């Protein structure tokens, strides 16, 4: 079942020296699965995530044939209707909890606020729900965390709070933009485990934006590889290492690996044709989303 279908998404920024095309004709569909978007900085992966939620600010322009969430075209919604989509149906976890949480508001208050925005329940019920949610993200003394300020939390804790806050309205789709890049490796696996479990249990669709190919190949079901604002390749995550596109191969080879030491790392040689050339895709992975049994 397709939750989200994006066709020919473009994001443009007019500049003094002409229009800059940050995202150029990205199309994909998402079911109840984990979809990874990888690419280097400037490849347009974050903008793709933001454009779905129509979070691109003026003077940026978003165009697309359609961005449909269960058949409803998000581009045709008014700003007021859009506000009902954000958080409630599609929510987003950003990279660094330090910049996403309000520093002068207690953690619990922020989660309760998120909860009350989307549901008509009493404050007390919202508080109980918030504590329950904090427990769901493996925060042990949830009462203490509820009354703490963000600066009293570690990075991993902060990110788990963000995930709790984003999942409390029970959205259908979660967009995670580099959710673990600011975290240590050991904390990273923990946070990913929690996110994976919740997304799986609730049957959500997940768009996981990352620059880390290893992580994406281990964590996601399907991967889009972006370069210069375009999807250059779509493949099954577990077959990422058999990727055909030279860019994907170059990226994979440029990473140092513990198990296979090399004297010199291979350096990516960029090819102008990647900007406009053919898009390699795995026949069974492209096109319609593959449903995942929950």
């Amino acid at each position: 079942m397709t939750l989200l279908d994006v066709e020919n998404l473009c994001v443009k920024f007019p500049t003094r020296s002409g229009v800059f095309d940050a995202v150029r004709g990205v199309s994909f569909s998402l079911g109840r699965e984990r979809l990874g978007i990888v690419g280097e900085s400037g490849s347009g992966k974050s903008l793709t995530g933001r454009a779905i939620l129509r979070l691109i600010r003026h003077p940026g322009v978003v165009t697309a044939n359609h961005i449909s969430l269960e058949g409803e075209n998000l581009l045709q919604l008014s700003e007021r209707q859009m506000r009902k989509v954000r958080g409630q149906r599609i929510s987003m976890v950003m990279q660094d909890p330090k910049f996403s949480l309000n520093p002068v508001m207690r953690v619990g208050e922020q989660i309760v606020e998120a909860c009350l925005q989307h549901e008509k329940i009493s404050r007390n019920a919202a508080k109980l729900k918030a504590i329950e949610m904090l427990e769901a993200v493996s925060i042990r003394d949830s009462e203490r965390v509820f009354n703490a300020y963000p600066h009293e939390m570690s990075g991993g804790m902060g990110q788990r709070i963000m995930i709790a806050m984003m999942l409390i309205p029970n959205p259908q789709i979660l967009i995670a933009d580099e959710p673990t890049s600011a975290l240590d490796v050991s904390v990273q696996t923990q946070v990913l485990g929690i996110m994976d479990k919740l997304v799986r249990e609730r049957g959500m669709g997940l768009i996981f934006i990352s620059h880390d190919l290893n992580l994406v190949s281990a964590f996601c079901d399907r991967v889009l590889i972006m370069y210069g604002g375009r999807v250059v390749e779509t493949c099954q995550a577990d077959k990422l290492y058999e990727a055909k596109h030279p860019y994907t191969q170059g990226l994979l080879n440029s990473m140092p690996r513990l198990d296979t030491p090399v004297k010199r790392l291979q350096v990516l040689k960029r090819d102008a044709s990647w900007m406009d050339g053919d898009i390699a895709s795995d026949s069974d992975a492209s096109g319609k989303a593959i449903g995942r049994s929950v």
Partner: protein
Amino acid sequence: MSANSNRHTASNADPGSQSGNAIEIADLSVWFGHGADRVDAVKSASFVLPRGASFGLVGESGSGKSTILRALTGLVKSWQGTMLVNGETLGRKRGKDFYRQVQMVFQDPYASLHPRHSVDQVLSETLSLHKFGDINDRVEKLLTDVGLGPQYRFRYPHQLSGGQRQRVAIARALAPSPSILLLDEPTSALDVSVQAEILNLLTDLREEQNLTYLMVSHNLAVVGHLCEQIAVMQNGEIVEILPVEDMRQLKSSHHYTQHLLEASMGYKST
């Protein structure tokens, strides 16, 4: 005098050069704050780097790995223990001689370069501080050494990409022709493709200029690529020092190292 020969005379004049150790750290403790607020960031760390070696410090954030580098360069004053650089014991103050031997490359190339100084200013300032003549030629040589070329000389940091900025930061560190480079997460702010370029550059420079590296990183694969010896830190203590071959074969005696290695091998769905 070329950069290379200058470095040699410097190390030959050094009385401790016979010992063959670039850095010796024994029982180093570093703390921040006083009284009840005191935090022991590093607790009696000891390790030795032979000349020309490449040594890695790994650990989670807050484990004290960067603090060791900062204490060594004199950026943190509250430390105790013994630190020897090229056979000379370090005191509280670091003189110009010290910085001629030891230079540091920082994590974030966006923050470590002055936004209103051109590449030329950055490099020639360092050179004139260390009383070098023929600054003009040296700046060009430094830029060539780090693979940028003289055409980047009059650019400002905002006109450079992240990888290029890190190259400038490396060029600045190489300006006094040091024998030891301290690398504090030199590639963690960069894309993997750019990271590969910088790591290759560091490998080449080490070979050409016979440098000693002390590198801090949270990425075990990066440290494993560049370093021969790796120290694993947890809560301010070095829990294990192991050669890279052992780490590659996941042979470690300490459970924390094992845990780090497993975590860095990637996410496993449960």
